[in-house]
């Protein structure tokens, strides 16, 4: 390991090594690569890192939460004397296993599920602390629910999910799992390793109905500011032609993958008009009945960091299990969204790819997660405790395969695009 890291330093060159930057691998505690890969990706999402370090600076003696553990970890990396090396995120993993029983084992976990959990959970912690800590009298109604939620952090891991769902219903800003738990019902309960994503919808987003955000506690957290975007779903009743639209928050977009396509295409597909019919009719308020309708979802507010989850684990009925879809899906280093709504706030946002969580292996239940990140113009590959500099041209190795003759593949799984106008 030591030889490896010093080699990295040599490869980059001491004069070119970015000042105040540290490239530290994370030690694997037994199948914790799902966490390591996501943490590295998040660490190199600059706005997120800064906020976490800011949190660390503000809260000198916090109650131990997942966020405080994360802040300690980030702080520890950022204040290392050495420029490269590895670090053991022991406290964080321990805390994580306490927080959520699904992660309290040594099995493979789904990196996206972890990301989803982590972002939501951090958001809850912030809201909880804001409510308990604030003297602004914002304690009633909406604020009350996240409060206990945050307060119960230690130990009550089994109820956390439920509580967050509850808080969803009353105050959507607190969490975001409502839709994902609805569409991917077994996501939070599954003891299996990977979240189950239905292959029917072209896109499922981890969304919350925005209509409920008018509660008392609407002040967005920095998690919202970084990750939250708004989807607007427009539904046109085919009977009365009334168009109704509904906004939903999202923290990430989950896209179906097709063979030999681009992420751009996958995102465009999500905005394709879908007809709601037969079992899936739309309850039209105007007609006061279930009617056939056309629906499309478009992005109304583009988040600062756009997290795209490629739904590569697909349930195949004939096999009665999930299989990995290794389709080749290219993702550019730069992205704009085609599927913005007409009233979008910032449709011109230009995104740069900053990190990719990569799944290596043949199927959902085995394999490995690594991540590649862009830092100061360099591309780095983090494989648990190992860090390597890679050429940008290597990224094409992670697009996927055009045939399934090869059983194993290394494929982009979660893409982090950062808006250029917010580049810190």
């Amino acid at each position, binding site marked *: 390991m030591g030889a490896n890291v010093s080699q990295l330093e040599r490869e980059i060159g001491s004069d070119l090594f970015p000042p105040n930057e540290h490239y530290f691998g994370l030690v694997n505690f037994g199948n914790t690569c799902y966490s390591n890969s996501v943490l590295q990706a998040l660490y190199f999402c600059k706005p997120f890192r800064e906020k976490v370090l800011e949190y660390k600076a503000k809260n000198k003696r916090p109650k131990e939460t997942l966020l405080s553990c994360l802040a300690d970890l980030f702080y520890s990396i950022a204040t290392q004397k050495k420029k490269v090396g590895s670090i053991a995120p022991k406290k964080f993993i321990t805390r994580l296993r306490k927080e959520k029983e699904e992660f309290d084992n040594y099995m493979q976990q789904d990196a996206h599920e972890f990301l989803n959990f982590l972002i939501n959970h951090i958001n809850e912690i912030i809201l909880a602390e804001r409510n308990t800590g604030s003297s602004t009298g914002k304690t009633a109604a909406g604020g009350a629910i996240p409060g206990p939620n945050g307060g119960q952090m230690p130990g009550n891991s089994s109820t956390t999910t439920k509580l967050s769902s509850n808080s969803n219903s009353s105050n959507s800003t607190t969490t975001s799992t409502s839709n994902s738990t609805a569409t991917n019902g077994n996501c939070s309960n599954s003891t299996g390793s990977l979240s189950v994503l239905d292959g029917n919808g072209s896109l499922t987003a981890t969304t919350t109905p925005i209509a409920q955000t008018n509660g008392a506690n609407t002040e967005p957290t920095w998690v919202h500011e970084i990750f939250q975007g708004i989807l607007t779903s427009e539904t046109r009743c085919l009977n009365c032609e009334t168009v109704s639209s509904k906004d939903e928050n999202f923290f990430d977009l989950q896209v179906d993958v097709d063979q030999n396509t681009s992420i751009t295409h996958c995102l465009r597909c999500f905005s394709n008009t879908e007809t709601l019919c037969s079992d899936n009719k739309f309850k039209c308020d105007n007609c006061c009945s279930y009617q056939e309708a056309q629906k499309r979802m478009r992005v109304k507010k583009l988040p600062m960091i756009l997290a795209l989850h490629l739904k590569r684990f697909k349930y195949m009925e004939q096999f009665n299990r999930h299989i990995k879809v290794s389709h080749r899906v*290219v993702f550019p280093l730069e992205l704009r969204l085609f599927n913005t709504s007409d009233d979008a706030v910032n449709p011109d946002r230009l995104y740069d790819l900053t990190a990719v969580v990569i799944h290596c292996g043949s199927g959902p239940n085995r394999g490995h997660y690594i991540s590649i990140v862009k830092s100061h113009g360099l591309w780095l590959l983090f494989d648990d405790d190992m860090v390597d500099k890679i050429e940008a041209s290597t990224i094409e190795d992670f697009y996927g395969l*055009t*045939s399934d003759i090869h059983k194993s593949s290394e494929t982009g799984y979660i893409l982090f695009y950062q808006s250029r106008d917010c580049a810190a």
Partner: protein
Amino acid sequence: MANQLDANVKDDLKTQFVTREGTYRLLTLSEYSRPNRVGYSNNQSSPQVRVSFVTLPNPSSKNNSEANITATTASTATTTATTTTTTTSDKRTQLHSNGATTTTPATPTTTATTSGNTLNGSGAGGDSNYNGSSTVDARLGGGISMHSMTNGGVLDQNGMPTNQIYGGDRICFNFGRDLYVYAFRGVKKGTEMSKPIDKKFYKGTNPSCHDFNANAATPTGAPLLVGFTTGQIQLVSPQQGLRELRKLFNEERLIDKTKVTCLKWLPNSPHLFLASHASGHLYLYNEELPCAATAPSYQPFKVGDGYTILTCKSKSTRNPLYKWVFSTDNCCINELCFSPCGSNLALVSQDGFLRVFHYDTMELLGIARSYFGGFLCVCWSPDGKYIVVGGEDDLVTVWSLHERRVVARGQGHRSWVSVVAFDPYTTSYTNWDGGDFSDDENQLNEYTASREDRFSGDSTANGGFEGFDKNSTPLHTNRAHPHSASFRSDGSSAALTPDKLAISYRLGSVSQDTQICLWDITEDVLRHPLTLRQRVNSTQLNDSSFMNGCLDADGIKVIRPVAMGQASNFADSGSCSPIRETAGGSAAGATEHSNSSSSKFSTANCTISSQSSNANTPPDECCDTEPAAAGAAAAIAAANATSTSTSKANSRSHGNSNSIKFPNCISATKSDSIDSGGPRVSNSNYSTSGYNSKNSNSSTKTNSNAGGSSSSSFSAFNSLTQRLSNFSFLSNSDKRSATIGFEGSGSTATNHRQHRKAMSMLKSYNQHNHSNHNNNRSSNSSSTNFAHSTALESGAGTVIGSSATAHSFGSLKLSKSSHNSSLTTAGQSSASVSSYDPMKLIGTPACPRFEECPLLEPLVCKKIAHERLTALIFREDCFLTACQDGFIYTWARPGQTTHVAQHLSPSQAAPPGGTVI
């Protein structure tokens, strides 16, 4: 999706598709791949499979002497475009026309004896080569080596291989570490897969790109440049017999260590080529010069907006001659392409930019930005008016050279667009007079001259003018279908019906989504106006010079951008055909309108006031383009009139001569088109041009006798332009190029050539001798390109309101005195492409917002492979596609399917590697 998981399912692949011109069919027997077909092999991370194509001159007979063969060089070669711009040729007819006319001395490459060749693979012995192949192993240095197998045949007494294939078409493609050259046998014959002409296997590196030198092609082959992933460049020149001469550039990687991304021979030169590397640098090499054993040290040669051109700091000329460096990050050049006339160079790069340069002057003509992501491919329209690019935004983007803006985008691919290509054989047109070939006015007369030369049988007079192949002329004369007639069919197209059909370009694109898309780009799309939103934005950014082409000062007349484009065409091409294009596309009354406008034209030559009053009327017409053109013409005429009338004493000035070139150009070309039998030009147009040409020619003569240079109407033009619309590119380029001209008077032969073009354009050959003056003039002439369109645009602008017109012409006079100051300020303001920041470019003509730009839908969009497609080449009777799995498919055009395809049966379709039909 399920069947995509199963690579054996083939039924979703198309083997034929229908367009309005008929059915295209895959010819399974005309398929090219590695000789030994193997099962699926993963070539995904290997370099893109690219295809180079060349048409060789045919020996006049089997007993052709060597001298005769080698003499068949430049002129024939110029008829064959390299790689994607393929030319068609009926081999036999071509043979006679070319063989007789060539007088160009053979190039050193082709005449060089192979005595210096260290490789003994030429196979002098007959018996040992009885099997028809020779094998060579060679170390190429830099850790790479090559194993080459040439399929030659038995040698006869003269040392000529009897089985060697002479002439015809050659196709070259790379796959992994391999490189193959086959004789392309067209749609009539199946391939002989077991007999590649040449196959090379490299160790330690992979070939990444290649290009045949059509300018130096002989019946036995053409010099082939091969670039490698490790940065080296190899030149393989076939010799008589089985020998080949090999040279290596950047052997020790001292010049550039990164992958060679694109190689292109210069269209007009048999020895110069450009090589782009993944580092983002572009190098010009002369294959006759060695690479020194030391790393080059550079000194700046020219600094432009966002780019710097360096040259080697050394006593003797060495490679690379020039190094182009661009300012943006990650600007790995993915492809470069010369315009059909050979004077402009388009580059697309990973930073998402299209950059268009006037190659000889190294002036940046314009840029475009992808919606997002890198641009991967580029192609010029056959007439050089438009550039199409494809990239990582999954879009096909059409950019107008004259308007300097993105005019349309095509959405249809599901992944990155890897190759775009115009189909010159399915580009339809109407009422074509053959006068509008060049994309650059400087080229025009040279081209016209070359055409005349061709008609007179002397094809060598003008040194190598790639792209306008005379071969297409007889072919298209035979092809009476309007839709299949090519842009390149010059005078012969006069035989076609003069129906006023809209111009339509046919475009093909292939993508990583394994689909091919065909697009029709029609005139009505190309003249689609800018939207309001864009105009709002552009007023904020109107200091950026590259947007000149599309900025409207007032932006009210929606159709005016087209008018401007047309107007600039009008002047640039110097022909009246664009007018009639417009007329054909817009309204039947347009022709009559053009008559009236031309009469105004002539009026305008006399007085300014009448001109402006005339200009007021046209906007009332339903067709705006005509008035705009008329206005532009009027503006020219006015300028002309001004220069002649108000500044008689100064009219011999240098600048003045430039301004006079506008009308002169027009008139010259018009008379040319008459000479070449151009069809149907309205009489009044003729008379106008006649009048004009007299006027301008006379003044040009005056100029030619005068050596002095002072302020003039040219500067007046500048300030007029600026005053009208804040366009400043013109005078800036004027200034800069003038500077260059002076600086580089000794150093650049290119300037000189440029100058000659300018001279020929003016048809004032007697001016040729004032070298200093000429240099200056030449640079100015290049700038008149800008002056041209800009001034015309402003002229178009004047049509709108009489007050504006009056004002502008007032300023025209005023500006004469303030020549220098206006030039200076212009130089300042337009010195930069305001920004290469894509955040600032969004909403500008370089990168309009998605909803601001006309969106094309593909004519057809068919999935034809299981692996990503990597090449697309249009030929007269077929087109070729290549796939990353190493297969090159031939698709017969409608009516071109032969017996090969007819007796095609599923059993005969070779099962290649589980990926193709």
